[in-house]
């Protein structure tokens, strides 16, 4: 694909989109308001008005804006209801996988309605085809895209409740106020929202402003504990396999020892006669065993005799892929001429998502309908995929979205519910299908192996050019709602992956001529979007390169970033971690600090770590992060996301990767997939949330590249080496 080249733009912030919404009353006996995001909701702002020189595409529009724009165009409809028993109910068109979206949305509702947080219910919405991609979770877009519609809804509801109280009490609405899920009057009257909701439903024209406030928040911005915290600590939180679906039978699948192998023949004589076994079913991905308990299903699976076909990447190992990735790298565009230069190459291994909850789904296919319970980030994709698997109309499939035990990008795909639907269809019984940890590790999806070549040229203390060529096994973006959104928006050329790369990667530094390009080398193995997708690799190596450029030019890494970053908001987070982390303090030999920066999703973050490399297993001992998300809704949630991102950075740089050995992935569990544990986590971690400056940006994936780079840069400084291949302990 053509390189995207631009000159360094002037200092400046990207223009802020104003999002506009229509709200209207839904015919209902109690107050129910809905928002439809207008087509103009995300009308592209004239970016050129602020940034006169050519930008990289990701400077002009990013995935979050496409996501919001597309969902607006597909008749998005969210509903907030006030019930007679004084509950406020907002059906969340997203999935909760630990990122805290339910807490953040409940806070936005409570804030703008002046309801007690404890009075707000945030159930996850079933799949709704009319929502389409607006129901997808991913790309750090949830709060970013829902902030305005949700607060618009809540403000509209509040205005009608106030008006209803004013009419009941025959006083001017402007004299009333709201607090604690009730309306109050100067005369000492009060009425709960529940008692007013029927009258509020009849209010057509509110007598007070229905527009969201722009300041004076009492809850938004306050550190707030998760609304589901008590359910978690008491064991009441229900994941897909915890849902009590009557008659649902435990099911596991025997899978090929090689990636992509299929069943040629099998003998289930022994397995089928084992205690508790109900059915043995061939499905496209293997042989499913259904039994009364998972233990019995697993034992019978082990007794199957299966003759497997060749796999799709038999004989292929990491070294083969690395060689092809290296050969596929495109040429640099800028001739070195008389300048000096810094060159570097980097490699990343495959990395499994490895959420704690393995792939799971409960599916009950009946004659003319089906019901699904699954933690999915793409509910409408699951609905249509299960319909296809079961031979039903899409509308005949009900998908109940349940909380997920982590995702990190894994749950945008539909494979477990599709397998469960295939089995349920075949045996005529509801099934609860579970991937084993081995299944997840060896047949689940991978962040693809990647190769990177970077070159920066400099002269007289200035960076004249910065070029980055990345190659990777394609990310299977088309299997996700993310991919659908991009294709629908016209970003499918030449491939969805390269389009996504160009929309997400932008060099944040004044480095003169900047070119970045992705080449894809196809292999038929399961890949997937992994937290922060290309940025987790591309921006991480860019930040390592920044340290090396700084070193070549004789700069301190922090001073260099503060000088070459493009705007003050970016510099502010770097300054914050440098100050709070006591950057430059004297440290013992074999230990060091490192920093990294990243901006994406309309947000920016920096990370400083301290590492101890004096033992055989290096350990990050301290982390300091700062993030500026424009409008921090829940600082506690943001801190959690930042800390988790640091663990991803530590893990993928130092310890955690997956080997491809002759067509099969080697690692089978957390015994050999070395994701950080308590002993490899920092002893302390501070997260500084910068004050509000505007509308919410994305946060879930934001800190991964900054954290990963900080770890690599600290390692480099502690050991005097140039880390090049990740994870380092592989």
């Amino acid at each position, binding site marked *: 694909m053509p390189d995207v080249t631009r000159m360094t733009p002037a200092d400046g912030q990207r223009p802020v989109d104003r999002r506009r919404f229509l709200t209207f009353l839904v015919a209902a006996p109690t107050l129910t308001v809905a928002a439809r995001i207008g087509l103009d909701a995300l009308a592209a702002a004239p970016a050129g008005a602020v940034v006169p020189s050519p930008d990289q595409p990701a400077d002009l529009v990013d995935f979050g804006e496409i996501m919001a724009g597309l969902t607006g165009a597909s008749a998005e409809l969210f509903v907030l209801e006030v019930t007679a028993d004084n509950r406020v109910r907002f059906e969340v068109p997203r999935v909760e*996988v*630990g*990122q*805290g979206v339910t807490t953040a949305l409940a806070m936005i509702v409570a804030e703008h309605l002046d309801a007690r947080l404890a009075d707000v219910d945030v159930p996850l919405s079933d799949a709704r085809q009319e929502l389409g991609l607006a129901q997808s979770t991913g790309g750090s877009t949830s709060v970013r895209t829902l902030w305005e519609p949700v607060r618009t809804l809540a403000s509209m509801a509040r205005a009608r409740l106030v008006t209803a109280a004013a009419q009941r009490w025959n006083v001017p609405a402007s004299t009333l106020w709201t607090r604690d899920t009730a309306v109050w009057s100067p005369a000492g009257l009060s009425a709960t929202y529940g008692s007013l909701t029927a009258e509020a439903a009849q209010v057509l024209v509110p007598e007070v402003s229905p527009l969201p406030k722009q300041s004076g928040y009492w809850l938004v911005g306050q550190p707030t*504990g*998760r609304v*589901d*915290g*008590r*359910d*978690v*600590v*008491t*064991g*009441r*939180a*229900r*994941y897909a*396999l*915890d849902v*009590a679906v009557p008659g649902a039978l*435990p099911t596991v699948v025997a899978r090929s020892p090689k990636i992509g192998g299929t069943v040629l023949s099998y003998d289930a004589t022994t397995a089928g006669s084992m*205690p508790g076994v109900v059915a043995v079913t061939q499905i496209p991905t293997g042989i499913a065993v259904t039994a*009364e*308990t*998972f*233990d*019995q299903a*697993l034992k019978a699976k082990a007794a199957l005799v299966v003759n497997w076909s060749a796999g799709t990447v038999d004989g292929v190992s990491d070294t083969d892929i690395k060689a092809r990735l290296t050969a596929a790298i495109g040429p640099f565009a800028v001739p070195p001429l008389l300048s000096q230069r810094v060159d570097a190459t980097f490699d990343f291994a495959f990395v499994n998502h*490895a*959420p*704690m*909850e*393995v792939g799971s789904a409960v599916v009950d296919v009946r004659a003319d309908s089906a019901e699904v319970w699954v933690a999915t980030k793409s509910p409408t994709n699951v609905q249509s995929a299960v319909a296809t698997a079961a031979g039903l109309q899409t509308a005949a499939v009900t998908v109940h979205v349940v*909380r*997920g*035990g*982590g*995702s990190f990008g894994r749950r945008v795909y539909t494979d477990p519910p599709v397998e469960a639907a295939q089995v349920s269809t075949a045996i005529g019984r509801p099934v609860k299908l*579970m991937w*084993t*940890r081995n299944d997840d590790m060896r047949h689940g999806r991978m962040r693809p192996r990647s190769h990177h070549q970077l070159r920066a040229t400099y002269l007289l203390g200035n960076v004249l050019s910065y070029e980055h060529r990345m190659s990777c096994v394609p990310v299977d973006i088309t299997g996700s709602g993310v991919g659908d959104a991009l294709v629908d928006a016209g970003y499918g050329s030449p491939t969805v992956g390269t389009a996504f790369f160009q929309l997400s990667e932008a060099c944040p530094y004044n480095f003169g001529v900047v070119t970045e390009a992705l080449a894809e080398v196809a292999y038929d193995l399961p890949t997937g979007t992994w937290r922060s997708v290309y940025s987790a690799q591309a921006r991480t190596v860019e930040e390592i390169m920044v340290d090396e450029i700084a070193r070549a030019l004789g700069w301190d890494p922090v001073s260099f970033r503060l000088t070459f970053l493009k705007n003050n908001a970016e510099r502010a987070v770097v300054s914050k971690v440098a100050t709070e982390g006591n950057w430059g303090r004297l440290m013992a030999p074999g230990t060091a600090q490192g920093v990294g920066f990243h901006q994406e999703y309309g947000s920016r973050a920096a990370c400083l770590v301290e590492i101890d490399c004096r033992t055989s297993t290096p350990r990050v001992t301290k*982390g300091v992060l700062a993030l500026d998300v424009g409008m921090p809704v829940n600082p506690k949630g943001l801190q*959690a996301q930042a*800390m*988790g991102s*640091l*663990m991803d950075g530590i893990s993928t740089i130092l310890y955690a990767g997956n080997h491809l050995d002759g067509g099969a992935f080697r690692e089978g*569990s*957390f*015994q050999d997939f070395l*994701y*950080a*544990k*308590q*002993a490899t*986590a*920092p*002893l*302390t971690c501070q997260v500084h949330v910068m004050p509000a400056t505007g509308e919410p940006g994305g946060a879930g994936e934001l800190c991964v590249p900054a954290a990963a780079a900080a770890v690599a840069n600290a390692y480099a400084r502690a050991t005097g080496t140039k880390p090049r291949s990740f994870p380092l302990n592989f």
Partner: protein
Amino acid sequence: MPTYTFNLNGQPVSVDAPSDMPLLWVLRDKLGVTGPKYGCGVGVCRACTSHINGQAAQICTVPVSTVAGKNVTTIEGLAKGSTLHPVQQAWLDEDVAQCGFCQPGQIMQAAAMLKTNHSPTDTDIDKIMNVCRCGTYCRIRLAIKRAAASM
């Protein structure tokens, strides 16, 4: 199929199960107790961690026959009625959880540790092997220290 009797969260239960069936599946598939989670089935991730006679155990690898006559406590049995165990309360106070899937195991591991070690050091806490893929480790460390101080 043999019958095994043990105390589950303070109540005696009897269950018919093969002797080698792991306690995790007995609890989840036969008794409907879903707090302990499957995360690996080989005792590595420790999402299933529960107590057997007060000691932390990875019940995905504990045959049901070995718990006959013993006291089994899962996350559901840790609180005293509506009063949370100090470790659960500390988990709320530090807002530890993210996805929450590993946390029943993390809490049971910490609760077992605090029975014998009233003031765990960072080195003691480093020995906890429970995996948290969301990366809540720093808050777990704070919560264990908070719980220790409150007990």
